C-alpha cells in the first residue's frame, strides 16, 4: 500500500461520496416539483413528509463530502472553497434554508408562514442540483485560479492560492458547458425525485403526476447529459506527467481514460443503461415502483465512473484555466502518506455505517407513506 495507491484509494472514496450525493439529490429534485406535482395541501404535505425523512442523508453526505475532501485533498478544499467563494456560498445558503424549512413549515408561530418555507424548499431543490452540477463540470472545464505554495515563505503575502477574477466562482456560469452539466444534474435529480415518490408514497393521483413528469425531465436530462458527454469525449483534457508533475493538454484525454480503464467504461455504460431502464420503468410500466432502484444505482455508477476518470490515469482533476501548472492533481493536492494511511484504516469502518443505515431505512420504509399514516402519526412535518 504505497503513497500512490492511497491517493487513488482516497480519490475513489471522494468520487463515491460525490456519486452518492448526486443520487441523494433526488430529495432536491422531488422538492423542486413541490408545486408542479401536487394539486392540494394534503398532497404537498405528503411530498414534504416523504422527502422529509431522507433529506438529512443528502445534507449529511454533503457535509461529509466537504470533510473528507478536506482530509484527503486539502489543497482542493482550500483552493476551490476559498476561490469559488460565491458558487459554494450560494449552494450553502440554499441548504441552510432547506434544513429548517421542513421542521418549521407546518408549525404554529413560524414567523414567515408556511408558503415561504415551502418556497425555500423549492429554491434549494432547483438551485443546489444545478450549481453542484456546474461545480462538477469545472473538474473538466477548468477554473480561473492560481496556486503558489512558495508564498508561505513570504511574510507580507503568504496566501498560496487566489482567484484570477472578482466573480469568485460565479464565473463558472459563464462557460456554457458548465451550465449544460448543471442542467443535466438538475433534470436527473427531478427524474430521480419522481421515481422516489412513486416508490415511497401511496397516492394514486400523485403517482400518475410523477409518471407524467418523468417523461419531460428525462428528455431534458438526456439532451444535456449526452451533449456534455460528447463535448468532454471530444475535447482535450488536462494530463499530468507522473514523473515531473508537469501538466499539459492531451487531445481526447477523457475518452482515452475510459479506454485505458476498461472496468471504468463498463461501470459507466452499465450505469447509464440502468438510469435509462429505471426511467423507462417509471414512465411507462404502470405498476412498477422500483424505477428508483435502477436509476439510483445507475446514477451512482455513472457519476462514480466520471469522477474517477477525471482523477485517475494521470489526469488533473481540478484544472486551472489561467495557469495550467497550478492545476490540481491527486499527487500535488493530497494529504501526507501518514494521514492518508491513517484515514484508510478509519475508512474500513464505513461498511458498519452503511449496514446500520440499511437496517434503519428498511425498518422505516417497510410501508409506503400515506395520508392516513400522517393523520395517525404525531410527529409530521
Amino acid at each position: 500500500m504505497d503513497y500512490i495507491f492511497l491517493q487513488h484509494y482516497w480519490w475513489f472514496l471522494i468520487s463515491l461520496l460525490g456519486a452518492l450525493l448526486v443520487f441523494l439529490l433526488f430529495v432536491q429534485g422531488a422538492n423542486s416539483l413541490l408545486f408542479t406535482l401536487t394539486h392540494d395541501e394534503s398532497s404537498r404535505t405528503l411530498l414534504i413528509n416523504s422527502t422529509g425523512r431522507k433529506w438529512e442523508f443528502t445534507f449529511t453526505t454533503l457535509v461529509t463530502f466537504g470533510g473528507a475532501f478536506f482530509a484527503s485533498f486539502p489543497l482542493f478544499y482550500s483552493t476551490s472553497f476559498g476561490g469559488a467563494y460565491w458558487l459554494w456560498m450560494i449552494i450553502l445558503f440554499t441548504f441552510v434554508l432547506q434544513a429548517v424549512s421542513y421542521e418549521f413549515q407546518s408549525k404554529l408561530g413560524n414567523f414567515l408562514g408556511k408558503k415561504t418555507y415551502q418556497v425555500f424548499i423549492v429554491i434549494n431543490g432547483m438551485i443546489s442540483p444545478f450549481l453542484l452540477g456546474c461545480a462538477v463540470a469545472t473538474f473538466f472545464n477548468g477554473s480561473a485560479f492560481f496556486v503558489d505554495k512558495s508564498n508561505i515563505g513570504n511574510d507580507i503575502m503568504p496566501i498560496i492560492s487566489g482567484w484570477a477574477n472578482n466573480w469568485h466562482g460565479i464565473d463558472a456560469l459563464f462557460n456554457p458547458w458548465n451550465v449544460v452539466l448543471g442542467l443535466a444534474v438538475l433534470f436527473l435529480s427531478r427524474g430521480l425525485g419522481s421515481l422516489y415518490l412513486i416508490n415511497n408514497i401511496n397516492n394514486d393521483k400523485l403517482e400518475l403526476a410523477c409518471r407524467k413528469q418523468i417523461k419531460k425531465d428525462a428528455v431534458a436530462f438526456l439532451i444535456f447529459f449526452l451533449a456534455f458527454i460528447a463535448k468532454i469525449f471530444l475535447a482535450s483534457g488536462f494530463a499530468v506527467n507522473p514523473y515531473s508533475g508537469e501538466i499539459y493538454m492531451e487531445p481526447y484525454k477523457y475518452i482515452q481514460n475510459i479506454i485505458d480503464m476498461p472496468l471504468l467504461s463498463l461501470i459507466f455504460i452499465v450505469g447509464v443503461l440502468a438510469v435509462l431502464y429505471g426511467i423507462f420503468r417509471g414512465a411507462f410500466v404502470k405498476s412498477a415502483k422500483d424505477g428508483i432502484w435502477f436509476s439510483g444505482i445507475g446514477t451512482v455508477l455513472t457519476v462514480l465512473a466520471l469522477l474517477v476518470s477525471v482523477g485517475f490515469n494521470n489526469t488533473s482533476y481540478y484544472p486551472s484555466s489561467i495557469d495550467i501548472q497550478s492545476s490540481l492533481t491527486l499527487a500535488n493536492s493530497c494529504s501526507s502518506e501518514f494521514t492518508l494511511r491513517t484515514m484508510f484504516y478509519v475508512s474500513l469502518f464505513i461498511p458498519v455505517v452503511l449496514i446500520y443505515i440499511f437496517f434503519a431505512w428498511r425498518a422505516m420504509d417497510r410501508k409506503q407513506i400515506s395520508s392516513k399514516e400522517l393523520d395517525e402519526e404525531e410527529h409530521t412535518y
Partner: protein
Amino acid sequence: MIETIEASLIDWSRAQFAMTAMYHWLFVPLTLGLAMVIGIMESLYVYTGKEFWKTTVKFWMKLFGINFAIGVATGLILEFEFGTNWSNYSWFVGDIFGAPLAIEGIFAFFMEATFIAIMFFGWNKVSKRWHLASTWLTGFGATFSAWWILVANAWMQYPVGMKFNPETVRNEMDSFLEVALSPVAVTKFMHTVLSSWIVGALFVVGISCWYLLKKRNVDFAKASIRVAAIFGLVASLITAVSGDSSGVQIAKSQPMKLAAAEGLYEGGTGVPFTIVGDLKVPKVLSFLATHDFNGYVPGINNILRGDYTTPKGEKALSAKEKIEKGKIAIAALDTFRIANKAGDKAVAEKYEKVLENNVKYFGYGFIKNEADLVPPIDIVFWSFRVMVYLGAYFILFFIVVLWYLYKDTFTKRKWLQIIGLWSIPLGYIASQAGWVVAEVGRQPWAIQDLLPVGASVSRLQTSSVQITFYIFLIIFAILLIAEIGILVKAIKKGPEH
C-alpha cells in the same frame, strides 16, 4: 506593487466566523443536553412502562426537534468556512485538521441522521427497545461529533502530533493518537459537553417552572424537574472540575490567554484573583494556574519581555526574539525552496536545518507589532468572570432546587420557579462566554504560535465577506425569531397535545 492582505479582510473574516460559530452554538448545547435528558426519560419509560413518561419524552423531543433543525442548518456553514474564508489555514494544517472533520462526518453525523429519523418517526414502526436505542444513539452521535470537532479545536490551541514539511510547505501529522487523544482535547470535551448538559438541564427546569407558575401540568413539570435537576447538578460539578484542569493547561500552553483573562500585566508568585474592581482574593489565580497558592504566573508584560522561567524550567523568550526566530524560519523556508528547485542540495539541507531549529516560532514571523500578540483584554477578562460566576451559581441553583424537591415544597416556592425560568438564558450566556474566553483569548493565533489569523485567510475582496456576513446575519436572525416563536407556541400548547 507588492500585494498585501487588507486588515479589513482579516477583521471581516474573523467577524463572520465568530458570528456563524456563536449562532451555531446557540443550538448545539441544548441538543447535547436535551438529548441526554430525553434518553434518561425514555429509559424510565421503558423501565417502568408508564405512559406518563412516554408523553413526557415526546414533549421534550418535540422541542429537541425544533432546536435540532436550526442547529444542523447553522452547522453546515462551519464545515465549509475553513475553506471558504480560511483557505491558507486549510492548506497549512489541513493534513492534520481535516481528519477529525472527516471522521466527524462519516461516523457521528450519519449516526445522528439515521437514528434521529427513527427517534421521531419510528414510535409506531419499531419496538420499544429499538426506539430507546435510537434515542440514545442520536444523542451519542451528537456527543461523538462534539468530540471530534473539539479535537480539532484543541489542536489549534495546542498543536501536537505533527511535523513541518518544507517540501509541501505545510504541517503534516505524524501521530494520530497524539492528535485524537490530546490532553487538551479531553479536558475541552469534558468541559464543553458537560457544560452543555447544564444548558439542557436549565432549559428543562426553566420550562417546567413556567408550567408550575401557570399551575398546569404539575405532575409532568415536577417529574421533569427532578430528572433535569439531578442531571444538572452532576453536570455542573464535573464542569467545575474540568474547568479547573483547563486552567492549569492554559497556564502551561497559552500563558497569554490566562494573563488576559485576569488582566494581569505584571505577574509574580501568589497572584490574587480579581472578583470585580479592586476586590481580590489573595493567591487564588496562582492556585488556579499552578495548583500552588505560591505558584508563579507570568503577566502580559513578562510574556512580552520574556523575563521569567517557563513551567518546563526554560528561560522564556521575549516577543522580539520569537518574532526574529519566526522571520528566520520563514526566510529559511524560502531559501530552502529556491535551493531545492535549483537542485542545490547542500544549501537546501543547510536551510532545512535552520528552519527546523526555528519552526516552533514560525507564526511569529508574520507578526508586525509586539502589541498584536496581546488579545483584547476587557472582553476576555469579563467573559471569564461571567463564565466562572454563572458556573458557581448553577451548582447552587441545582442544590436549592433539589433541596425543595426533597422537602416536597418546590411547587409552593414561587420565587424559585421564577428564578428557574429566568435561569434559562443564563446557561446560554455562560456557554457563549466560555467560548469567547477560549477563542478571543488566543488571538492573534489561528494555530497557537504557528499561524496567526492574518496569514490564514482566503484571498477575497473585503466586500465579498461583508456581504456574506450580512446575509448570514439576516438569515440566522430570521430563523432564530422563527425558532423562538415555534418553541413558545409548542410550550404553551403543552405536553398533552
